[in-house]
């Protein structure tokens, strides 16, 4: 029996009604160990994003159970789920989803504020994080003044603000060139090695293989294969 830190058990999700119904996940059971980086791969429409939405407490399965930090979150109210996201989970998106009107440092500071509004010294901590990601000279730039690679680093800094144990990323390098992509892979790997976070990355990008502990391949809403990377 794998540990139930993060994962789904017998999870099914469908979208739409009657004839138009799409079964995005069909009874998937898959767990992710604490302190690992796992890849979720598979063809388009295989249910990767749907799985990530379950793990991120953004979607409830029609059937089955979702475990986050060892707790089944199925029965929780919308408010309680918000708290779970706030305390435990952070996201990195393909499209970055930075707040367009805020500077880099304000984006990260808002990440801290969302985790803990009473926390003092947000700006200092935000600056430290950005400096760590080599953005010390871009603190007051707005997102549209940054390159894609820089944007994604700001987004990761925002995601790490407040120190969440779980990081979920959907195609984080799909919008980046090779150089910037490798940089992001390394940053996320460091989160596992240095801080013991649990990272799940949905990707089509084979470059990730060398940074990951496991690769889960989905096909047609089911787990096709689980590999342990060397």
């Amino acid at each position: 029996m794998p540990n139930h830190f993060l994962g789904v058990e017998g999870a099914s999700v469908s979208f739409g009604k009657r004839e138009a119904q799409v079964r995005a996940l069909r009874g998937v059971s898959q767990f992710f160990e604490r302190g690992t980086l796992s890849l979720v791969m598979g063809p388009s429409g295989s249910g990767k994003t749907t799985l990530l939405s379950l793990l991120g407490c953004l979607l409830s399965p029609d059937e089955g159970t979702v475990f986050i930090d060892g707790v089944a979150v199925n029965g929780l109210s919308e408010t309680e789920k918000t708290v779970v996201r706030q305390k435990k989970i952070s996201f990195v998106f393909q499209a970055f989803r930075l707040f367009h009107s805020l500077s880099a440092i304000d984006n990260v500071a808002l990440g801290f504020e969302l985790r803990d509004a009473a926390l003092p010294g947000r700006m200092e901590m935000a600056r430290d994080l950005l400096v760590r990601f080599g953005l010390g000279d871009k603190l007051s730039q707005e997102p549209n003044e940054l390159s894609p690679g820089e944007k994604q680093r700001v987004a990761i800094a925002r995601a790490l603000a407040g120190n969440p144990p779980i990081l979920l990323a959907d195609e984080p390098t799909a919008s980046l060139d090779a150089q910037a992509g490798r940089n992001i892979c390394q940053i996320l790997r460091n989160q596992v090695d240095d801080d013991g976070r649990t990272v799940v990355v949905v990707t089509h990008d084979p470059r990730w293989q060398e940074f990951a502990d496991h690769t889960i391949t989905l096909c047609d809403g089911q787990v096709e294969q689980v590999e342990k990377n060397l």
Partner: protein
Amino acid sequence: MKLAWQNIVHDRARFSVTVLGVSFAVFLMVFQGSLLVGFLRAASRLIDASDSDLWITARGVQAFEFGTPIEGRVREMAAGVPGVLETSRVCMAFSVYRTPNGKQQVVALVGADRNVGERFPVPDVSGSPEGMSPDAVLYDVSDRDLIQVTAMPAEVEVNRHRARIERVINGYGAFLGVPFLFTSYRNASRFMGVGPEEGMFVLLRVDKGYSTSDVQRSLRQRFPEVEVLTRDEFARKSRSYWTIKTGAGGAILTAAVLGFLIGLVVVSQTIYANTMENIEEYATLKALGASQAFVARIVLTQALICGAVGSILGLLTVVPCIGYAKSLIPWIYTPWWLLLVMVVPSLAMCSLASIASVRSALTVEPGRVFRA
């Protein structure tokens, strides 16, 4: 909170469009409201200006402007009814006016006894230092162009009788497009060719020791052939006649109601669109663990800033515009409460529309954040 402000500062063009939308709505609502309020006020203006408690009119009289004759002895008999303290007379008739240079013009001639009320425009001999003659004729400053008097006193003709225009007053301008002329009751009945055996409106003041409705009831029993109304009843009758039973008033009423509704729709549309513009960011906020309250606070702050700035801008433009419109529409009128009554629902609509837009977008599907 910084996000709310930054969004506004950052997207100035968008903010301006939103503010413009709200200010247009407030402008429309206040302007149309002022037309309606002014029209209603003008429709009962002279009735409200009297100090009387009761008005006696002929049966079937719908408005001050369309009074018909009653018997003159009604007044003497009413004066003897217990509780009646004082009586006065008012008459009004459309008359032919000839300007000093001989041009002819229809006017609404109003005659009243001096004791009809402090505010009622009647030649006031005692209160006039330059000595106004008891048969002086007054007209309103807004009817200057129609009356065509350059210097006063001016010798003119009313119904082929000689008359002297001695004074200009303010606030009793034409409402039917026909200017008012005011003079004493005696003088007016002479111009109209009406003797003491005939009257039009008899106004009564009720003694403090009596209840107005008791006196009204006994007058009704005593004079079944006329109408006995309290001043407010007659004012209301006159207003509802003009607004509901005439096409012009109906149009103003409809325009005001539509203006109000359109204003609210424009406000909600504008604010809704403004909120939807950033909906993706609100979804991100929610995904990152922001509570409903946190998102609502940001959205509301933004909407209320837009609403407040838009309202202020709308008020700042509508007030001078109404001032200017006064020269064309003398009876237009903006009481201060109207500004409040229009701004409060606008701000409420801002809040509602913004909350509705966020709710509908965020409750449907939080998973949207992963879509590129």
